[in-house]
């Protein structure tokens, strides 16, 4: 169960159907809703990074908001100060986040479990203040942040929101496929072996140090790409957007979607965007219900109670149960 989903015709068909469905969505809903879905997909990409690190490699991070910020600011600075093309900033943001993640992974090697979580926590807390730091202010815009315009529509006839939706969808599908290939390769097995039993893994000749730092870098890279996309979506970066709350939110999304899964990140992203809004709508409509974040908390507890392995975990278990049942019925 803790392995990535094997490729079967059914999985491929499901994946294709999901992509097709996603492709028509922006033509069925308003620009605003497309914008929300784009946000959800950007979160989803960040969650994918976190899943690779925490779900598959067993390293804890509550500091992914920092890598998100690295990606976001790399893109914003290139756009604002150097007037780059939007899409050209994506690979640079990915590389920058990879470098930071890899370097952070080096000292993290000496830390396990809770201690690593604390170290990443420190990174998350420090990030907004570093971005406000006087020496960097010329580049980061300090507390006032930076404005960047939305990318122009790629194809005539699409609105800017629809176009960005398709770009984000394409990036997400590509990155999911890459993650899937990675986790099914030799390296993927090594990554998971380190999670399951680090001593056995190193006895087998796996260079655990290299694998752990590289995984940290790859995870940060995914999250950095998500950060860069989030800048295109909101057209603005400011340090206050990357506080510790974001880090916790990413962990919440990861767990709700299913931390040891690839498709689960979509549900995690949708959860992060739509459930707080939904909670607020309920709270506004009915004066007797508790305030929005209390409702959010209730949803979270319900999710943990009813889908303890995340949404995707529940889907998989449902499939397995159905298979067993149909096999028994035959």
């Amino acid at each position, binding site marked *: 169960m803790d392995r990535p989903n094997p490729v079967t015709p059914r999985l491929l068909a499901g994946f294709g159907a999901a992509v097709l469905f996603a492709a028509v969505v922006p033509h069925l809903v*308003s*620009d*605003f809703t497309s*914008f*929300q879905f784009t*946000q959800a997909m950007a979160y989803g990409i960040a969650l994918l990074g976190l899943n690779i690190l925490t779900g598959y490699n067993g390293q804890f991070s509550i500091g992914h908001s920092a890598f998100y910020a690295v990606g976001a600011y790399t893109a914003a600075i290139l756009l604002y100060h150097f007037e780059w093309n939007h899409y050209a900033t994506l690979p640079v943001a990915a590389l920058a986040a990879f470098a930071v993640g890899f370097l952070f992974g080096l000292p993290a090697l000496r830390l396990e479990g809770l201690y690593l979580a604390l170290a990443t926590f420190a990174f998350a807390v420090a990030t907004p*203040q570093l971005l*406000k730091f006087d020496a960097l202010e010329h580049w980061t815009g*300090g*507390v*006032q*942040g930076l*404005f960047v*315009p939305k990318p122009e529509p790629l194809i005539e006839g699409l609105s800017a929101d629809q176009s960005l939706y398709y770009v984000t969808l394409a990036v997400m599908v590509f990155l999911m496929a890459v993650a899937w290939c990675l986790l099914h390769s030799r390296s993927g097995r090594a990554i998971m072996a380190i999670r399951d039993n680090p001593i056995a893994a190193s006895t087998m000749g796996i260079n655990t140090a290299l694998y752990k730092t590289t995984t940290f870098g790859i995870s940060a890279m995914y999250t950095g790409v998500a950060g860069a996309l*989030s800048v295109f*979506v*909101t*057209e*603005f*970066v*400011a*340090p*206050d*957007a990357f*506080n510790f*709350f*974001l880090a916790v939110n990413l962990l919440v999304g990861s767990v709700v979607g299913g931390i040891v899964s690839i498709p689960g990140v979509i549900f995690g992203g949708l959860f992060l*965007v739509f459930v707080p*809004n939904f909670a*607020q709508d309920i709270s*506004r409509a009915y004066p007797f219900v508790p*305030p*929005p*974040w209390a409702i959010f908390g209730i949803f979270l507890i319900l999710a943990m109670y009813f889908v303890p392995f995340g949404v995707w975990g529940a889907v998989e278990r449902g499939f397995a149960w159905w298979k067993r049942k149909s096999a028994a019925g035959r």
Partner: protein
Amino acid sequence: MRIRNMLAAAAAAALLAGTAHGADMTGITDTTIKIGNTNPYSGPASVYSVIGKTISAYFKMVNDMGGIQGRQIDFISLDDGYSPPRTVEQVRKLVEQEQVAFLFQTLGTPTNSAIHRYVNAKKVPHLFVATGASKWGQPDKFPWTMGFQPTYDVEGETYAKYVLENVEDPKIAILFQNDDYGKDYRDGFLHGLGDKADELVVSMLPYEVTDPTVDSQVLKMKESGANVFFNITIPKFAAQAIRKSCEIEWKPVHLLNNVSSSVGATLSPAGLDCSKGLITAQYIKDPVDPQWQDDAGFKEWVGFMEKHMPGSDLTDANYAYGYNVSRLLHIMLDGCEDLSREGIMACAANLKDIELPLLLPGILVNTAPDDFYPVQAVQLSRFDGNGWVLFGGIFDSGK
């Protein structure tokens, strides 16, 4: 026949709708006016959420009394947690889904920055934003955004002017919070000092909002030989700085930013004796200041609070702020004939000598098509051991 009649009626209706000056009447019906707002009901800045609650309570009262121009106010206030991306999302929701007529009092500097361009591209009035930054009054670049309160740099300039005119051979120490609020004040002050700023400022020290105390900064500033102290701190640190300078018997001309001028929140904890002689700039009637107890505007506010927000902490100046700004919008909409988006913006840009219940006597709201700073005057006051005593004239930056 019937179809032709219907067609004719439809055409006439279309024509009528078209001739209704073809203006953007989004969010306005014959019976309602829809207004959008974001406030930090959660997160680090949620102390300000009382402003959103006060505005909601105010317009509920207005609705109970028959609304504005016979229209009920539908005030939709959403939580953005003081996070800029959330603000973008919530404001897009207000504009695109809820179809509000305009935005009012969206709170916070980074949060409003995030939507500044969006609302101007969409041509949605973005009125009386709740932040003291100075960038909200640029009608040539951002014709749909307007500020409200005196900007931090105006206040800073006021102190600079006072120092230059009243202190002989000033040597100035500045303590500031290391963020946008602190730097806006500092820069306004330095700007007010002009070319001489470099010579006059002998010590300039920052602190982080996470620091435990500012004692060491105060000691260093005393050692620098400064005889003027510009204290740009929030209440907790302001109280520490006042207390410490009192203990070490450093007695400079002590300028305290308005943010911390509350007697209840700052001066009492610091010690009222130690606070004697402090100078601050004010534009709003301080709720804990005894001199306003019998003032008509102040009593109006207390009456409102007791009736519509019972049990609230009357020493919290944010309630007074929320009441004042709601009142301004109420007055503006009452006298606004053209409620299209263009019309609303024109009304906001043509306010003449409006009095608000909790503005200091003599401070009036004025705007013009090239002046998007509604309140831009402050008055200095000195603490006499019991309360703030206004002195000097009203300083109008005349931006």
